[in-house]
């Protein structure tokens, strides 16, 4: 299939296995197929593209979206109904509350002219969430062909291995298919494929090479790498655009982009700043050295009493309640002295800085409860600035 080869790269073997599993339109296929592999290894993309290109009747459902039994079953039935009805014909919304009704309605819908005598495919993406739903759902879907006595095949897509799905009492074993991870060569090929037309393929390929050099040891997720490639390309092109270098000055371009990519790893890769913030920073041409991800903050300029409130909050959050007396008789005095109103303001500002979070409902009658959400390294740094040896007061360090 030449058309497919251009849209689906580096997955020829998987495409051909799937095609031969599907077989001819009116033949039976295996009742259930379980496809597993890392995220962004092409499972969803290949399955969808193949079913669409071959024009096989199929329904695609995401188990994260349809997180209850009813949502899942109704979506499948309604999409199927939509497939079977002709153009422009209005079909009423189907409601379905139980799996028993689902099987009954499924049998009815698949009697339609456009669906009978062909294998109907139901694709359940993010299938690992099925394990958290009703216990009979997974075994039921695995045997749907037998239960409905129709030519239907259910395809499960997941990044979790099949052994973690199998129920204790056993079930109908699906056909397990593995989608291997992309090699570095594959990644290079796929990422270089979306080079913008204004620049040459070689120029973009060199950029991808540098990107992979920085990120490959840490991350192999195609989606993340693609996102990073798009975000950082303008910065890479900057010297060329400004006229400071030509497209072939690899050393200069590398020197320009490499520290920038390293900074990206500490910030936008960790989602500590958003992609739009990152793009804005590039446009404003701020020195990336000034930028710090939130977790890289080793100290924050807080007023004196706020620091103590934070330290107290940390101790309260992580020491067991019964040890409080032992540690706190001395400090009680210090906190009591401050004005109540000021204390409330300081607490609200700590919450805004996300150093404290509200726990429980805000309509609790006995006052709001907070929890300190900073890490040990952070609080130690703060404690150091006020000469308070916090370690002495932490239960876990006794």
């Amino acid at each position: 299939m030449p058309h497919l080869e251009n849209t689906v790269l580096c997955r020829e073997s998987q495409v051909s296995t799937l095609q031969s599993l599907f077989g001819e339109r009116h033949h039976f296929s295996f009742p259930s197929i379980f496809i597993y592999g890392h995220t962004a290894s092409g499972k969803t993309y290949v399955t969808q593209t193949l079913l669409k290109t071959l024009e096989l009747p199929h329904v695609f459902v995401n188990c994260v979206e349809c997180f209850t039994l009813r949502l899942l079953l109704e979506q499948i039935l309604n999409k199927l109904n939509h497939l079977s009805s002709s153009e422009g014909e209005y079909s009423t919304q189907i409601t379905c509350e139980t799996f028993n009704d689902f099987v009954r309605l499924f049998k009815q819908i698949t009697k339609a002219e456009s669906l009978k005598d062909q294998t109907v495919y139901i694709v359940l993406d993010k299938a690992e969430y099925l394990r958290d739903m009703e216990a009979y759902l997974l075994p039921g879907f695995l045997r749907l062909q037998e239960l409905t006595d129709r030519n239907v095949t259910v395809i499960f897509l997941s990044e979790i291995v099949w052994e973690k799905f199998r129920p204790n009492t056993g079930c109908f074993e699906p056909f397990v298919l593995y989608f291997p991870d992309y090699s570095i060569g594959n990644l290079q090929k796929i990422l270089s494929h979306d080079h913008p037309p204004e620049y040459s393929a070689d120029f973009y390929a060199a950029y991808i090479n540098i990107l992979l050099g920085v990120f490959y040891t840490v991350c192999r997720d195609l989606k993340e790498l693609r996102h990073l490639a798009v975000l950082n390309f303008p910065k890479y092109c900057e010297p060329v655009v400004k006229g400071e270098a030509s497209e072939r000055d690899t050393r200069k371009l590398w020197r320009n982009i490499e520290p920038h990519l390293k900074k990206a790893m500490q910030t936008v890769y960790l989602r500590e700043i958003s992609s739009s913030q990152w793009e804005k920073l590039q446009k404003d041409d701020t020195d990336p050295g000034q930028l710090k991800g939130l977790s890289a903050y080793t100290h924050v300029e807080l007023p004196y009493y706020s620091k103590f409130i934070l330290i107290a909050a940390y101790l309260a959050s992580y020491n067991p309640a019964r040890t409080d007396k032992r540690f706190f008789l001395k400090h009680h005095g210090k906190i009591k002295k401050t004005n109540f109103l000021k204390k409330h303001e300081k607490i609200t500002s700590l919450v805004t800085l996300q150093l404290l979070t509200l726990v429980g409902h805000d309509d609790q009658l006995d006052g709001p409860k907070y929890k300190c959400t900073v890490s040990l390294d952070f609080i130690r740094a703060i404690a150091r600035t006020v000469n308070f040896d916090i370690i002495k007061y932490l239960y876990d360090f006794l």
Partner: protein
Amino acid sequence: MSSRKSKSNNLIQAEYLSQAQRILRERFCHQSPHSNLFGVQVQYKHLIELLKRTAIHGESNSVLIIGPRGSGKTMLINHALKELMEVEEVSENVLQVHLNGLLQINDKIALKEITRQLNLENVVGDKVFGSFAENLSFLLEALKKGDRTSSCPVIFILDEFDLFAHHKNQTLLYNLFDISQSAQTPVAIIGLTCRLSLSEDRNVRDVLQKHFNVSKSLRSLHTLLMLALNRVTPSHPFMTAADLMEANQLCSMDSKANIVHGLSVLEICLIIAMKHLNDIYEEEPFNFQMVYNEFQKFVQRKAHSVYNFEKPVVMKAFEHLQQLELIRPMERTSVNAQREYQLMKLLLDNTQIMNALQKYPNCPTDVRQWATSSLSWL
């Protein structure tokens, strides 16, 4: 031979192949019944006789068919029913009700389904009217009205029988068996289950599995043959030994090893750090901070500064391993504990890790050496 003749020969060949594929796929995928019953002739004879006694002579009976998954229970009963229905006197009189524990998950739904399949008077189209109590009494009335001589025998087939036994008060089963004992409409109750006892006795189940090992692999044989069958096309019309070998390879992959194959180098390093912790502390649970410290011991050696990533980046890799279920928290995330200090367990053993490392593409030598060294300060 003219090209036209060879072309039509090819078409005919393709047509034959297509037919062959269709038949084989029906057998492997759809479990179509065919005439041969291997290894269950005795059971079959017993079953068909019992069914005939109910259908023709009006005697009530109950049977529980027990066997592990894939041992041919459903096939057996379908075959028996098919033969039974070929008797003229039977096909006009006998009613069948097919229930499955996966579908009728409580007695209310089961009752409605029975009513629907028997097409009693409180059914209009697909809808069954009445409450649970009303349906039950209606059904019992309908079945009680009869006697051995004048009413239609009903055959109830309950697949995944053990699930029905878990319904509240076992109302349905109680009532069905009650009818079969009393002199009312003749009923045959056929239960199919893969559980030996209706309790969770693992040892008994394991023994049964071992005993039925040959039958168990019939299904995996089907899978293997399906995979090989997939390679048959008009251009490659005969299955070869190579096809079967390749199919076998695909069947016997170790799935966890496959997942480890796709991890990044940083994630592999974390797994090695966990392996070392398991070796030193004899499989005691660990937390992220401990793994990070162990990893730092490796990083701080002079040549390894390339692995000196920021702590949050290492944390993201650790969380990816958790998402893939290669590591698991010991208990549910409590509100009090911070993520870095939550205790975890590694779900890979040393053999799996070392095998996976062998196959890991472009594994840096120093990482591989670190994995094999038993003393981490070397």
